[in-house]
């Protein structure tokens, strides 16, 4: 639409005999952009209103991320509108401007995000693979089991001779279980936390890379808002690690402290369902600044180029 605003150089010159340059640009480019933005915002608000009326309520805690998303989407659309204007001026109103715009769109929507994804995937390959990581954890577990077996073998005669052998056995098992909780389990947990930190760094890096181009950031922000993004993934990792640790504590307590024999479910109702949250990325305003800067830069360059072209100096 941005490319279609100024129909042709001839039309612009015709208008210039009636209005001044600034007024034409302001009224044709910016005012139309403003109207389009208002139209888009009203459209989204109407859709949201109807969704509410038809029984799909937008909860209060979702309203804020959706509001930020709406603002970003408006500027993201403005980016393409102004890119159209920019291309039209850059290619001097020729038909090739449309081709250039299609190319820019393809590059922005497909090529750049794909390159960014490939870059992320290459960086992610530096992380240990699941097999390597799990084998390492498994090895620690096996070593612990071996330790337990050796210990029991050593102490077997003593246990057998003891009058309260059941209690003795239970006492040994409890000691070993707590030993496991305080050593091997913590070692494996710390490995998992280190890996989580590395993943976090990778995600932060990816987020920083996404800021620099609007289509990348739009994709990033839409994933985060729809709770399918990396912030949600990190939350999920934290959730399962915490749940597992809590379960281990719960089990050991029930088994060795209270001596409960009755089987009870640890997870109740929907506790095992992880509900990812919508997030406004912490870099939201940086992303906005970058996108607005792109828009401003394209507008100013196109404006000055157009002025230079019309008033050939």
């Amino acid at each position, binding site marked *: 639409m941005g490319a279609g605003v100024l*129909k*042709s150089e*001839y*039309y612009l010159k*015709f208008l210039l*005999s*009636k209005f*001044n340059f600034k007024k034409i640009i302001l009224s044709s480019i910016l005012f139309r952009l403003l109207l389009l933005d208002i139209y888009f915002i009203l459209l989204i608000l109407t859709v949201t209103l109807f969704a509410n009326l038809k029984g799909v309520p937008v909860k209060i805690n979702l309203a804020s991320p959706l509001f930020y998303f709406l603002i970003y989407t408006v500027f993201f659309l403005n980016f393409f509108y102004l890119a159209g204007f920019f291309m039209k001026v850059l290619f001097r109103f020729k038909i090739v401007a449309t081709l250039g715009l299609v190319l820019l769109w393809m590059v922005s929507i497909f090529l750049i995000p794909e390159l960014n994804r490939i870059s992320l995937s290459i960086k992610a390959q530096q992380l240990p693979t699941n097999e390597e990581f799990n084998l390492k954890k498994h090895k620690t577990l096996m070593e612990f089991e071996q330790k337990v077996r050796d210990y029991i073998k050593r102490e077997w005669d003593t246990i057998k001779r003891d009058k309260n052998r059941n209690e003795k056995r239970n006492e040994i098992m409890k000691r070993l279980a707590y030993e496991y909780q305080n050593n091997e389990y913590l070692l494996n947990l710390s490995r998992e936390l280190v890996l989580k930190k590395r993943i976090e760094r990778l995600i932060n890096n990816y987020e920083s890379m996404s800021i620099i181009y609007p289509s990348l950031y739009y994709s990033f922000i839409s994933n985060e808002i729809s709770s399918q993004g990396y912030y949600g993934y990190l939350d999920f990792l934290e959730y399962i690690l915490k749940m597992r640790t809590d379960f281990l504590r719960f089990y050991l307590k029930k088994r060795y402290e209270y001596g409960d024999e009755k089987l009870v479910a640890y997870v109740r109702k929907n506790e095992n369902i992880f509900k990812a949250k919508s997030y406004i990325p912490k870099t939201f305003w940086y992303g906005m600044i970058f996108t607005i800067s792109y828009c401003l830069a394209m507008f100013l360059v196109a404006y000055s180029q157009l002025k230079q072209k019309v008033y*050939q100096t």
Partner: protein
Amino acid sequence: MIEIKNLVFNEEEGYSHGIDLTVKNGEIFFLLGKNEKCLLTLFEILRGFKKIKKDKIFLDAVDISQKSNLPISWVNRIENISDFDVELTLSDFITFICNKNKTYKQRVLETLLIFNLFENRLKNKIKHVSHEDFKAVCLALSLSEDYPNIIFYDFVRGEDKEFEMSFNQLVKEKLGEGKAILYLTQDLFYTCQIADRVSFIKNGYLMPEKPILYEDLKEMDVMKLYKQYLS
């Protein structure tokens, strides 16, 4: 009154070693040239779309070379309707260009009457109107401010006789109102119909030394003139 003094330019499309001419109020002055691009360049320079250093353009003895908002109505040739916003109706187009100024709009509608273009025909979209009708609307819009000076660039070329006659009638009305009109064209035959004075640009010079008056033009052999200045 339009007065051009020592207008020198050397552009890719054409050049001039110095144009000096004066168009008095109530007079139509035809400036002819063989090179179409050179005439267009001159028109663009006068409009201010091409900036050159050594030019002096006076309107009523005031140097307006550096000003951009001039009391001149500029009427360019309309070649392609698709250059415009063809989805608009003629009426919307007029309202947009007149910028809600009722006097301008009234003046446009009065001008359109000369071309038998009545209000009911203005409801059509630009893409559905004839080239002549759209051209008449553009002409009327260009003259809506009623400036005392008008500069045309080859406006009637290629149009049918009816349009040409209506245009001539409009020009005569404007001359009667005391406007100074400068008309840039290649069309010597049309020039012979309504010109008050005529000059030619050849090899960057204005020829003949003194512009040819209408009375003299009538007596002259057009073919000879053409061969002398435009061939």
